[in-house]
């Protein structure tokens, strides 16, 4: 079956990020480690998370897959501080979620751009001081510098998510949480966005947690794929394929097939190519 060891990341060391602008009072530099201990969350009588314990190494790209309602989005919202756990602890960079808010950014399933702010203003949301050059640089990173003065209403779905990505990157987060941000995009835009997310992650070196229902996307991007079922982590799969990954690669297909079979509760259809 799939290997349960942690994959060795062969990603280059985080590059010096353009632009070299650090926000005052913020530490830049690499991803934040995340430690989750015995995390529980219930909504009414429904136990959404039932004791989740995990460690994310700094700079790792983690994908969380599972059926709808398995608790994967709740896990992300707990990490983002949008929900409070009933029990258990989360440490981001050794500190509480509240203390880690400044270094954590969340990308939502819908772009959630403010329609009354132009693209540049959306990217610079929450920044103070001379934020325009910083926001413009973040827009350049996602390839939308030319749309800085447009209203969000005239952008396509993919462009909106690019702006949302720039907005998340502008504060140089050390933990980026992605709540199925590519779920609503068409297939081609989706592949482009996956490449973009991978590129910025390789450059910026943040720890990334991607929630997705698309197993291929998880295998494409992640160092580690976590499967959640009924509020528990049921599998932890290291993805040891060289980047950038090719979907046609036999190792890719085998991993994807194995994880899918597990999610569907079936024995793996073919054992070829598996260790």
């Amino acid at each position, binding site marked *: 079956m799939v290997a349960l060891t942690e994959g060795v990341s062969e990603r280059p060391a985080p590059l010096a990020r353009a632009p070299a602008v650090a926000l005052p009072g913020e530490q830049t530099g690499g991803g934040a480690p995340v430690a989750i201990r015995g995390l529980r969350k219930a909504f009414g009588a429904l136990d959404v998370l039932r004791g989740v314990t995990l460690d994310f190494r700094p700079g790792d790209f983690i994908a969380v897959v599972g059926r709808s309602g398995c608790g994967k989005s709740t896990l992300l919202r707990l990490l*983002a*501080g*949008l929900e409070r756990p009933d029990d258990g602890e989360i440490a981001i960079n050794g500190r509480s979620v509240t203390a880690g*808010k*400044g270094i954590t*950014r*969340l990308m*939502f399933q*819908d772009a*959630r751009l*403010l*329609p*009354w*702010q*132009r693209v540049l203003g959306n990217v610079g*949301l*929450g920044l103070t001081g001379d934020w325009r050059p910083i926001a413009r640089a973040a827009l350049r990173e996602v390839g939308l510098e030319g749309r800085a003065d447009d*209203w*969000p*209403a*005239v952008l396509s779905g993919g462009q909106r998510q690019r702006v949302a990505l720039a*907005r998340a990157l502008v504060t140089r987060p050390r933990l980026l949480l992605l709540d199925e941000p590519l779920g609503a995009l068409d297939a081609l835009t989706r592949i482009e966005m996956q490449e973009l997310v991978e590129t910025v992650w390789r450059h910026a070196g943040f720890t990334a947690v991607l929630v997705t229902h698309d197993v291929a996307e998880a295998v494409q991007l992640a160092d580690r794929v976590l499967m959640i079922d009924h509020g528990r982590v049921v599998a932890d799969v290291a993805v040891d394929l060289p980047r950038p990954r090719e979907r046609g690669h036999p190792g890719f297909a085998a991993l994807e097939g194995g994880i899918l079979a597990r999610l569907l509760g079936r024995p793996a259809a073919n054992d070829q190519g598996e260790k």
Partner: protein
Amino acid sequence: MSAAVRQRAAAAALPWLLPVTALVVWQGLASAGLISSRLMPAPVDVVLAAYSLILSGELVHHLGISLARAAAGFVVGGAIGFLLGLVNGISPLADRLFDTSVQMIRNIPHLAMIPLVILWFGIGEEAKLFLVALGVMFPIYLNTYHGIRSIDRGLIEMAESYGLSGWRLFVQVILPGALPSILVGVRFALGIMWLTLIVAETISSSSGIGYMAMNAREFLQTDVVVVAILLYALLGKIADSVARLFERGFLRWHPSYQ
């Protein structure tokens, strides 16, 4: 003239087609003696009456007073309605405390208060200010409240998770999100503002356009009465145009205004 220019001119002229035709027919009937000038003076007589009122300074005097009353009442009532809508929209506690009372007062036709208002304030400025403010308050209250309540929760959640809170959250997310609805309230309120003022000035006043009209009635100056009525139509149109201008300015981001 190119076809495009002609088309634009035609489009600009179209809204005025009916009013202008009505004027022409009216003048024709009056000139032919088919309408008694005591019941309905001819347009030309109305224009002449307006001209002499302007020359005597009477028109400007009354117009100025009416405008000042309208503006003062609008500002006072609008501010109260806006603040109340804001507080009730944001705070569930304030909502529970105030909303029932506000709804009860809202359902009293404010013009029914006129006898009471005259007893309270006489026919002075306070009476008009009170009535206009009371009338203007509710559409602005309701639309501010509704605007704030209907803001996309996801946007507020996003803004909070991106570090906005308090005043910055209000200015950057809540207020602009509620603004389309608030401006609808402003347009409603402007209509109510004129209506209230006309009634208040007609019933109890010693100045203003309403007074001018009532005074002219006593002397059977039908042309002056018509001037006053047309003036209200014009003022209403101007107020609505200003409100539209605000909408275009503030809602440029909105797909409906692009």
